[in-house]
């Protein structure tokens, strides 16, 4: 009974607790006060129903839109308006009314919870104004800087465009020059080629004659060797002593086989031997020379090697791919160098028979060659210059094609890098290029993402940069970084974090995102509510 009594008292207290000075129902913003007229039936703001006025703020939810309980927590979807004189007005979900937590700085949300709230609006307002002032100053200065940046970017853009145009003009000339030199080269190469061919042909004929001589000598020598009884004939039996001539590889040269080699004859004289010689010369072993070494077989290693290679192919590992990633650009450079400077020193063709070396060119041929070489060099030099020019043009065009913001205000970040050192790492942001992380005390660099795109909200995509496809994480995604841009006088990386494994967040201040201060006049807003 005591309890019931107490309850009733408390309920009373609630209804008396409404401060008198507030006009209209609790929690209603000024703009909506007109809908809440004392002692007149209240129509839910969504028009769904009409209720007696004493049901407004009676701690029971009657309207689906929560509009009958702007000052109590009865409706799940209601909202409460705090005036917060001296600070900014605010709507809070009605579930925060009388929950014991001070949400409104004017304490109006906690009128029956026992929470001891202090009115902090003035203090908050002051602080906010200070912050705002600071921000405004920063914005102001930042915006000025931004104008410079825009101008510089414009200038730079124009310059670059002019440069590109100039270069394209130069390129045309270079193109022509290359063509002329190509013709000169080709013209010089024709006689060179012919002279060289002549020289080569002469030499080859000479070589053939020598070879023929040698063969004949060999044949004569063989004949003498075979003719064991020196009767001036080589007989079947004499031939049979050379088992290496065995055709069916059974180890013996039978009489029939020998006869076959001799073209059916029993014996041949020196001149007839000329027709036998081609049949046996490939296999024939001179008796005076040591046996030829067995033909060297293809070394088995050669077959094995690729197998070994494949076996040892490493599992894809982070570290490795990391380094590869990092080296990418450098490698590109090397490749370019390779292209430009192909290996020119060619080792002269070596043969076992050094004595058979080609004789030097005669003076006329050499002169032709020298002339052609010069033409080639000239041509290649010009072509290289053209390629370089192309690269330069392409680079500038690439730069010009970047989205550097609506006024190109981000241009100045291009090809720059900014670092931030934390406890463990040095973070490096190279805008429009890549983000990386390097341990402070040694260790390799990790790619945290390469330039992807602007990815801010629709109304201003230039507030966030996304860097993607960095080094992969174990069992995870590739590293990526979001760079959040805020207005500042200086261009600095202010913080980095890894909110989620391998997803980095970098905060970056730059004047380039400073907006024009909306109002140079600094005044605390919501004066109206005062």
């Amino acid at each position, binding site marked *: 009974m005591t*309890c019931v009594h107490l309850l009733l008292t*408390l309920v009373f207290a609630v209804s008396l607790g409404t401060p008198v000075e507030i006009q209209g129902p609790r929690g209603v913003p000024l703009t909506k006060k007109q809908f809440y007229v004392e002692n007149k039936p209240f129509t839910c703001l969504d028009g769904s129903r009409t209720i007696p006025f004493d049901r407004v703020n009676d701690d029971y939810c009657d309207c689906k839109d929560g509009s009958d309980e702007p000052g109590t927590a009865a409706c799940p979807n209601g909202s409460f308006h705090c005036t917060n004189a001296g600070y900014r007005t605010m709507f809070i979900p009605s579930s925060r009314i009388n929950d014991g937590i001070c949400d409104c700085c004017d304490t109006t949300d906690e009128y029956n919870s026992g929470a001891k709230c202090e009115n902090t609006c003035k203090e908050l307002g002051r602080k906010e104004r200070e912050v705002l002032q600071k921000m405004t100053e920063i914005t102001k200065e930042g915006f000025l800087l931004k104008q410079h940046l825009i101008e510089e970017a414009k200038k730079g853009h124009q310059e670059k465009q002019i440069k590109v145009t100039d270069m394209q003009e130069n390129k045309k000339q270079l193109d022509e020059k290359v063509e002329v030199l190509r013709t000169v080269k080709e013209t010089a190469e024709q006689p060179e080629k012919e002279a060289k061919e002549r020289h080569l042909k002469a030499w080859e004929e000479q070589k053939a004659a020598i070879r023929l001589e040698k063969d004949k000598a060999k044949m004569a020598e063989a004949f003498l060797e075979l003719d064991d009884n020196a009767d001036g004939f080589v007989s079947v039996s004499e031939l049979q002593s050379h088992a290496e001539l065995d055709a069916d590889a059974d180890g013996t040269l039978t009489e029939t086989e020998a006869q076959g080699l001799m073209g059916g004859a029993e014996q041949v004289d020196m001149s007839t031997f000329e027709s036998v010689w081609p049949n046996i010369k490939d296999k024939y072993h001179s008796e005076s020379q040591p046996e030829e070494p067995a033909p060297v077989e293809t070394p088995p290693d050669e077959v094995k090697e690729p197998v070994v290679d494949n076996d040892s192919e490493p599992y894809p590992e982070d570290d490795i791919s990391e380094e590869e990633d990092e080296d990418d650009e450098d490698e590109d450079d090397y490749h370019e160098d390779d292209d430009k400077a192909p290996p020119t020193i060619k080792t002269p063709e070596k043969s076992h028979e050094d004595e058979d070396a080609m004789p030097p060119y005669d003076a006329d041929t050499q002169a032709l060659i020298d002339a052609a070489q010069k033409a080639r060099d000239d041509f290649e030099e010009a072509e290289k210059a053209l390629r370089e020019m192309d690269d330069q043009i392409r680079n500038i065009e690439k730069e010009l094609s970047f989205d550097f913001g609506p006024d190109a205000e981000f241009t100045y970040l291009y090809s720059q890098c900014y670092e931030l050192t934390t406890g463990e790492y040095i973070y490096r942001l190279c805008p429009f290029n890549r983000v990386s992380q390097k341990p402070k005390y040694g260790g390799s660099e990790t790619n945290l993402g390469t330039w992807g795109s602007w990815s801010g909200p629709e109304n201003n995509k230039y507030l966030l940069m996304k860097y993607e496809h960095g080094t992969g994480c174990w069992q995870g995604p590739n590293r990526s970084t979001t760079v959040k841009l805020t207005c500042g006088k200086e261009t600095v990386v202010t913080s980095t974090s890894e909110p989620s*494994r391998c997803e980095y967040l970098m905060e970056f201040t730059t004047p380039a995102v400073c907006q024009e201060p909306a109002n140079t006049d600094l005044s605390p807003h919501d004066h109206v509510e005062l």
Partner: protein
Amino acid sequence: MGLLSVVCVSLFFSSTFAVDRGNFKTCDQSAFCKRQRALKPGQSPYRALLETLELSDSRLTLQLINDNNKVHLLLELYRLQGNMTRVKINELKPLKPRFEVPDVLIAEPPTEPLSVLSKDDNGVVLSLGVKNQRLIVSARPFRLDIMQGPEVLLSLNSRGLLAFEHLRLHKDTDKEEVGLWEETFKSHTDTKPNGPTSISLDFSLPGVEHVYGIPEHADDLKLKTTDGGDPYRLYNLDVFQYELYNPMALYGSIPVMLAHNTQRTMGIFWLNAAETWVDISSNTTGKTVFGKMLDFVQGSSENPQTDVRWISESGIIDVFIMLGPKPSDVFSQYASLTGTQSFPPLASLGYHQCRWNYNDQEDVKSVDQGFDQHDIPYDFIWLDIEHADGKRYFTWDPHKFPQPKEMLQGLMDKKRKMVAIVDPHIRVDSGYKIHNEITSKDFYVKNKDGRNYEGWCWPGNSGYPDFTKPEMRAWWASMFAYDQYEGSMENLFTWNDMNEPSVFNGPEVTMHKDALHGKWEHRDIHNIYGLYVQMATAEGQTRRSGGVERPFVLTRAFFAGSQRYGAVWTGDNAAEWDHLKISIPMCLSLGLVGVSFCGADVGGFFKNPSTELLVRWYQTGAYQPFFRAHAHLDTTRREPWLFGPENTALIREVIRQRYALLPYWYQLLYQAHKTGMPVMRPLWVDYPKDTATFTIDDEFLIGRDLLVHPVTEEGSRGVTAYLPGAGEVWYDVHTFQKHNGAQNLYIPVTLSSIPVFQRGGSIIPRKDRVRRSSTCMENDPYTLYVALSPKKFAEGELYIDDGHSFNYDTKKEFIHRSLTFANNALTSKYLFSPVEYCNIGKIMSCITAEMTSMSRFVWHANLLMISRTGKETPVDFEFDTSMSVLTLRKPGMNAGADWTLLLQ
């Protein structure tokens, strides 16, 4: 070559997402299990020596002899209060004492007198008190049968599988069988100074086809037969990326099995903390429903029977047979032995936001703000191992968490709380206070050579405090005092992980069995280690408030009795649909054996969930007792607002549903605490005669009155829920649509659907004003949801206390009302004595109540609220004819008062 390397990569890949089975033993690789399992059913070598029978008032003792080796055993039989029988078997004269598990029973179970009904050469018949219930001891071979009338309820050693490896001297063994005195698994050798010590006993359950329990396994609710496979294993292990639907051991062990049929529910509690394997076989396995029907029609059916066999590595046989007969009887029987679920602080029933890890104070702050920005309630934010300074628990990383009190105060200002992890492995580091004190007090577990046992865990080289020592636990508890645990405050709570214990470089990722806890081997106590860790931690939390505040401690490892110390979660699951599904049977199984405060990591711990899976998991987790989202370090962020506004709204909605139902959850936890009734239950618990419910584990009851069928299929367009209860009705809680019981109901679903039904005949209290945290809702009014039965009847309860202290117990400061709707009147009455009420009334008198009623009759008269004084007050109401919902507007009664609402 290319193909080969692809195969290699894919092998590597798949192995990272599934358990490495090779790390864990099969029965064949566990020498005692292999040995015991090699024994086949047959004539038992054991014989009861009836001449040794001694009967005192409360106990019967009798010697058994093994005719093969002449070793004598001592059998002790107790008839326990509450329809239970305890059977203990130990060696009559062991070489040295065998381990008996302490600290699990809340007290020596009170006994009732046993009386001998008859006795002859063949055996003894004892009366078990309950009508017609007898215990028959047969002498040769030895067996026990418990009978009711002509019916055998349960038999022990009926298959002759009682096997007791007696302690012996090493030279005693004539043949050196492998694994008797030493056993090697992978690179680890278990020296077994005591030799073979295992025990085994079989139980036959005639008439039983359904057995449940023996968690923890990632398997169906209804236990499967184990013929041809491994037995269910109970051995607390840290299993990396566990697989589903198999009998492998997991983080916790509760050696309790329930047997159920339409007539009776019984339980077997095998009190042994050593590695244990449970074999289940059944004579109806493989028979189709049709086959069984045919048997029935032809009368040829042999009585269905389930046979169970328990095998443990050491200790004694100490079995409690809980004879029911109702499911609720078994729960209260088991509760009377090992205690009930701790009554948690109300806030811990709210939503928990966890991640490995919230990186620093700034991160914690921004996540906290995120909840406010998106208007999603939560009560606890959690810090995993990275919060501590070099994994030194009880400390804070000085860079990431330099001002823990500031952080905790920030949370407290919003009436929110935090949990920080404290694991039982202690970094071996002479600069670490905790390590130094444990060393100087000589509290570490010892290795077989008597030196401090060391193993690898998160901090690197670690020691493991010997939690089996009461002095150690008292000291550990003292470390939670505010002046010891620097940076802690009253809103900081604790999470005990890795307490199996996990030892990265130990055999099966746990402690060596020959490590020493005083005179006992780790082998003897393994499964109870985790319980002790949570026990000491909960004790510490209670003590830091001078015994006033209730603790909240989450544990991963557990044993019988763990329910007394806090909450349990299902460990490191994965973001996969099957893992969402398995969370239901895993928590149901735990609930059946006392652990009601159970949950699974919402979203899945390993891997990244799809948005759909995440939303479905929230919708499921919100209707499970312990509701915590958690994620692995390597996963992407998944706070509820990171998946677009639509999904944020879906998650917000379901978390709000959870908060609205907190009064009901709290009341159910109170009931669990008082009676042992599980909070989250299989349907058969409340519909024990309905065989259709016996294998259902894709839906469940919360208490008796809410039925939940979570959507756990990807891309689901509908689910079929079984609504039990012939002649009953169920109301869709979202639409008030009424459905008849005893039917399979197809429910079309969208991503926003969570099929939940309220039982007709029930009254559920809710707080429909959902706020930032449960503590913010403390003084909010209740809404009673009255769902009428076809007979226009409903009943329910309302339990209220301060939500966080022990005053409900020490000062009886609580309100516990019975609510009844009958004869067109809704009445609130005390469930407990009025003396308590008036004390309470002073505290709680600020509570007002809205009354909402859902009913099925047309309304055409006045509605009156009548207080106890007889004063009548008219009440406004609204009536929605489409679903026949009557809403009483603001009746405003005191929740603690007597009143009647009369519909005239």
